[in-house]
């Protein structure tokens, strides 16, 4: 079969790889009908995440048709249309029973590796380094889905792929980011990063009742889309984020702050951006935490920082004094996708939300390598890429 494979920094190739096979009775094989490139795939593309090997199949946002089912799988049958969450969960461990699916204790076969870096293991993820299991990803014609009797979401007939594809990651991720803010009717929610996750966080915050939502980015297309979703926009290359946020909140700062950027944040002002780039270049820091610093500084005391943006390792110069003295709450983590999928699927079926709004480019899987570059460089107004086999 054909798949997009990682071969090194900035080197994704359209390769021929062996077809997947059922390896466990609970497995299923999915014929991919749509997949997407995620912002966190760019962390692998840019070489910021450790644990990738040449030939690894990329991708964790995908859906398709069930082609084969293991004998122990009583949930799926051949022909079912499913969206596959990016987190692989067993449904049986203590964390899964609590609904903390992204920290499933069972599904990462490389627990030792994860424990060395993180202290404990987290869930296996599709196409996302050997730290999280080294599972082959979904940017491929066929995908083996382990524990396929737990996470895959069956899609009712009549819904287009574009309406439901993002149930596997970015829609629940933006939703969880907003849910973690425990939004109150008087709240201002500031969202750093108006990429796909930021766009869903904006709409989620609006639907959950925030008084005002503020989007911070520098890409005009993203700001245009953020505004369409109900956000007040700040272009951080044109104005001071701190001053504008203070102005919008009568000098008090936003109650809730969402970091939808993660480890590769850009900063145009101040020295900390230069400092991070220099330290990252000489491998003294893995991630660039400019957004974290800014959020801690501007957030209203007793507020909440919600961090769906992906971080991989170590950061420097975090203002712990401000974080502690202001009594801020930090909530973060990979998304517990299945916690939200039933509710969000129903909202799609009811017509409240159409997640397809975020798609700006559709291309073939074969065009994947060039679409990675288009997406990374934000060329041609690119915000979200969907690939078809």
């Amino acid at each position, binding site marked *: 079969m054909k798949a997009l494979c990682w071969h090194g920094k900035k080197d994704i190739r359209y390769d021929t790889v062996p077809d997947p096979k059922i390896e466990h009775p609970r497995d299923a094989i999915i014929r991919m009908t749509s997949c997407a490139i995620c912002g966190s795939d760019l962390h692998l593309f840019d070489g910021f995440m450790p644990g990738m090997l040449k030939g690894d199949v990329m991708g964790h946002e995908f859906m398709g048709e069930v082609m084969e089912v293991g004998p122990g799988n009583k949930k799926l049958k051949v022909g079912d249309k499913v969206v596959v969450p990016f987190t692989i969960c067993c449904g049986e461990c203590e964390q899964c029973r609590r609904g903390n699916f992204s920290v499933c204790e069972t599904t990462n076969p490389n627990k030792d590796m994860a424990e060395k870096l993180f202290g404990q293991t987290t869930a296996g993820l599709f196409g996302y380094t050997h730290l999280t299991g080294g599972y082959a990803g979904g940017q491929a014609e066929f995908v083996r889905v382990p524990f396929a009797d737990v996470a895959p979401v069956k899609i009712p007939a009549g819904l287009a792929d574009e309406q439901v594809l993002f149930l596997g990651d970015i829609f629940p991720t933006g939703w*969880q980011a907003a849910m973690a803010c425990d939004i109150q009717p008087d*709240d201002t929610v500031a969202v750093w990063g108006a990429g796909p996750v930021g766009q869903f966080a904006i709409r989620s915050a609006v639907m959950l009742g925030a008084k005002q939502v503020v989007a911070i980015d520098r890409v005009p297309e993203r700001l245009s889309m953020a505004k369409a979703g109900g956000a007040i926009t700040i272009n951080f290359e044109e104005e001071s984020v701190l001053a504008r946020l203070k102005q919008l909140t009568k000098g008090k700062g936003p109650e809730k702050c969402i970091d939808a950027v993660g480890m590769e944040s850009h900063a145009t002002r101040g020295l900390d951006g230069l400092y991070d780039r220099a330290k990252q270049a000489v491998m003294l820091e893995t991630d660039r935490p400019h957004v974290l610093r800014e959020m801690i500084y501007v957030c209203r005391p007793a507020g909440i920082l919600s961090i769906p943006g992906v971080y991989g390792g170590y950061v420097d110069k975090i203002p712990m004094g401000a974080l502690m003295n202001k009594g801020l709450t930090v909530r973060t983590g990979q998304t517990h996708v299945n916690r939200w999928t039933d509710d969000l699927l129903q909202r799609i079926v009811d017509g409240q939300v159409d997640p397809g709004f975020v798609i700006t480019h559709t291309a073939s899987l074969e065009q994947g390598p060039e679409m990675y570059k288009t997406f990374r460089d934000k060329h041609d107004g690119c915000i979200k890429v969907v690939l078809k086999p």
Partner: protein
Amino acid sequence: MSELKNDTGSNTTHPPEGDATTAPSETGSSAGWRITPEQLAKGLGWFSIALGVAELVAPRATAEATGVRYGKNLLQAYGVREIATGIGLLTTRDPQPWLWARVAGDAMDLATLATDLGSGNEKRRHTALSMLAVLGVTALDVYAADAARREAKAAAAPPPRDYSDRVGMALSPDQMRGTARDAMAVSADMQVPSALRPYTLH
């Protein structure tokens, strides 16, 4: 290979003018004090001319001030170079080549000054300070050239796509505000501890 397409649909709607959500900030904007790349290039042009005139008209005084021991002919030649670059910067529509010419001139100045740092020069302290000053100006020239390059690139880029019709919700954001509040009840672990609630409400 299937055809690559941009899913912009019919996104030709323009945002309403004067919308409060994109109104420029009065207190937050730094546009008031920011120097544009064009202003910086013009400023460097005037600086070039002033320095060039000084070198051309008063080479001995300039040599005294900067600690160099070269003859007046060399300083006057450098003065002509500075004036030519300055005029170029003040008259051109694309300052990039002239700014890079200034950087090259800075390199010449530094090389000339460096040859005069030997122990035979009683004013080598002056010379070293002059080199520091030239290094500072060089940094400014490089910054200005890069800023001009970025501005030219931005001007050449196609206009940004308009996604202002991509609401993604059934109704307008104002109509959708709060319609999913019922969802909050199902995740108690995502809620603020009750002791903090009164503060966050007001």
